[in-house]
């Protein structure tokens, strides 16, 4: 019996080794195709973000291919699902770079996922550009304070977004006191909360309550009751739509009528589904672009996107489109599919006319551009105002 077991174990081991060797031989880069990876939240709690972003990136690649591709080659997009989880984001990055041999990666949407995967693409010297990750730590390593060479973003950063909302609360809504309710598991929400607080206090306001929840929580009534007792003028909830939807719903059920504010994590068609259109009245959030914007670039993008997917593009689709276009543009300028050369060109991006405004990458690889504030009216997003940097 023991001998049989041993033989069996050896067989399994041999099979595994053979499998690894075969997998290693299978992926030869086809000569006339350039591969771009997308490490996205296709499933899980942020799934609508990743799906929109992938649609946006696909549209960019399709348009580039229709124009004859870049440097005489066609482009393909390879999508890897990170399940909205940091550990999976690192795995997906590993797979895209080492197995699929992509020349650049459209990095995840959520800051926590980009940060978790950063070490992988840094050490492999392949650039990753996140459409929307807005936490400063994404491009600047918090321990060494050095800029991560191979990480970029097509979005503005949280200090800007947080201060835009704080100014909006203080100036447009005339709020004197605010409560902050953050997602304690998200770097993005914590960052936004911190910068909102700093600006709001600088403007002479007062933060009277700071509460936190965890991702996947479902009951927020106890904490909302506590916040209500302090009677703030506005509530700032910089989380993601899944929990935000439940928070807004439960807050309105408890009779909390004050304006509720948030960031770009609110931008999802699921939000009105979860919260209900009526509950979302009197809520505002900052975003990268609005499909109602009347500029020519936005109009053309919205028309093309609708033709392709039969739905309105959200900010994630727009920013992923921009990020992909920036990468394609860099390949063109580099006149090569060498990942390091592409990176060098991407770093030089200046005044690039994108859908979400004119993009210039600054010394910390962040996009400098304008933000919009969206108001929810009966479950529909409406364009409220545009704020320049």
């Amino acid at each position, binding site marked *: 019996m023991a001998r049989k077991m041993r033989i069996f174990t050896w067989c399994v081991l041999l099979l595994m080794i053979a499998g690894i060797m075969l997998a290693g031989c299978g992926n030869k880069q086809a000569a006339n195709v350039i591969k771009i990876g997308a490490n996205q939240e296709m499933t899980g709690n942020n799934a609508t973000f990743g799906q929109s972003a992938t649609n946006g990136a696909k549209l960019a690649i399709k348009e580039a291919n229709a124009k004859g591709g870049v440097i005489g080659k066609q482009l393909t997009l390879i999508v890897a699902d990170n399940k909205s989880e940091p550990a999976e984001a690192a795995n997906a990055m590993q797979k895209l770079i080492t197995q699929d041999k992509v020349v650049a990666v459209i990095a995840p949407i959520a800051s926590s996922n980009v940060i978790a995967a950063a070490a992988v693409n840094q050490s492999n010297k392949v650039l990753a550009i996140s459409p929307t990750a807005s936490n400063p730590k994404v491009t600047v390593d918090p321990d060494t304070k050095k800029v991560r060479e191979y990480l970029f973003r097509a979005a503005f950063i949280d200090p800007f977004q947080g201060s835009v909302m704080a100014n909006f609360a203080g100036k447009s809504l005339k709020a004197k006191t605010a409560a902050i309710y953050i997602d304690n598991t998200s770097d993005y929400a914590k960052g936004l909360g911190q910068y909102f607080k700093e600006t709001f206090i600088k403007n002479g306001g007062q933060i009277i309550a700071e509460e936190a929840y965890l991702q996947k929580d479902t009951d927020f009534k106890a*904490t909302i009751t506590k916040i209500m007792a302090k009677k703030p003028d506005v509530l700032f909830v910089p989380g993601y739509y899944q929990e935000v*939807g439940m928070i807004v*719903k439960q807050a309105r059920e408890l009779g909390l009528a004050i304006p509720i504010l948030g960031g770009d994590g609110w931008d999802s068609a699921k939000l009105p589904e979860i919260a209900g259109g009526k509950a979302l009245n009197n809520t505002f959030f900052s975003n990268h672009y609005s499909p109602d914007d009347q500029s020519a670039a936005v109009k053309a993008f919205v028309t093309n996107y609708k033709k392709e997917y039969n739905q309105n593009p959200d900010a994630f689709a727009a920013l992923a489109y921009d990020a992909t276009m920036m990468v394609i543009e860099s390949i063109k300028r580099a006149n090569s599919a060498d990942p390091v050369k592409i990176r060098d060109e991407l770093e030089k991006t200046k005044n690039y006319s994108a859908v979400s405004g004119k993009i210039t990458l600054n010394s910390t690889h962040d996009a400098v551009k304008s933000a919009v504030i969206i108001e929810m009216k009966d479950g529909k997003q409406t364009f409220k105002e545009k704020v320049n940097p």
Partner: protein
Amino acid sequence: MDFASFLQQLGQQLINGISLGSIYALIALGYTMIYGIIRLINFAHGDIYMLGAYFGYFATAILKMSFIPSLIIAMVLAAITGMVIERAAYRPLRSAPRIAVLITAIGVSLFLEYGSMLLVTPQPRTFPAVFPAEIYNVGGLVLNSQQIVILAVSLILMLVLNYVVHYTKSGKAMRAVSYDTDAAKLMGIDVDKVISFTFAVGSALAAAAGVLVGIYYNSIDPLMGIMPGLKAFVAAVLGGIGIIPGAMLGGVLMGVIEALVSGFFSSTFRDAAAFGILILILLFRPSGLLGKNVREKV
């Protein structure tokens, strides 16, 4: 904070806590009944609750049924699932050491979680609103119709369970098997049938909790059962595992404690408080609040 506003907050937190607690109580009942009868902590119980929520979702969203029929369908389907799980996973291990069954239960739990992820995708789903959430304002306290429905349904189910356990023949058989399995067998009770029945009842209650939660929070996903499952387990231990009224008491207490902790201390301490209770109860009163200290027979 002045006294009147403190009282009002306390009242509101009690309402929040009791509606959450009655959900825990419904799940805890299944834990406690199954433990009472075969001395097994059925870790897959939280996932039956998740399955119940999905059965309810498909009944309301796809078959367009109203609340009561979909609740009943979810309960029946979950009861069948519970019986199948017992037949396939636990019955073959009836004479195996207890630890083997416990590990099997963890395996079944993972199987249900990731199996349903495969079937229905990990995407959270939005539960359709089967009845409107009307809001009542009673002396500054806010109560909505969903909370009332949750409370009413849980109370009715607990009363029915109490009746079944104490005044029917199968209930009597259940109590007999729980008291002494071998003696019950000698008296001509079909033990396998009774255990199967217990799994059916426990699973049906968990499914009811799942549907209620789906309606109340409006969002369900394949991993939704893990946390409530664990908390209901703590609730069952708190009340005294194996004791039916203990599970009800423990569940409601857990809900109220969670609401008070997040309401008056910090919301981040809520889960710590729940599991802190488990440690305290195991240290100082291992047989639970309503349990008697029984020596293990040798």
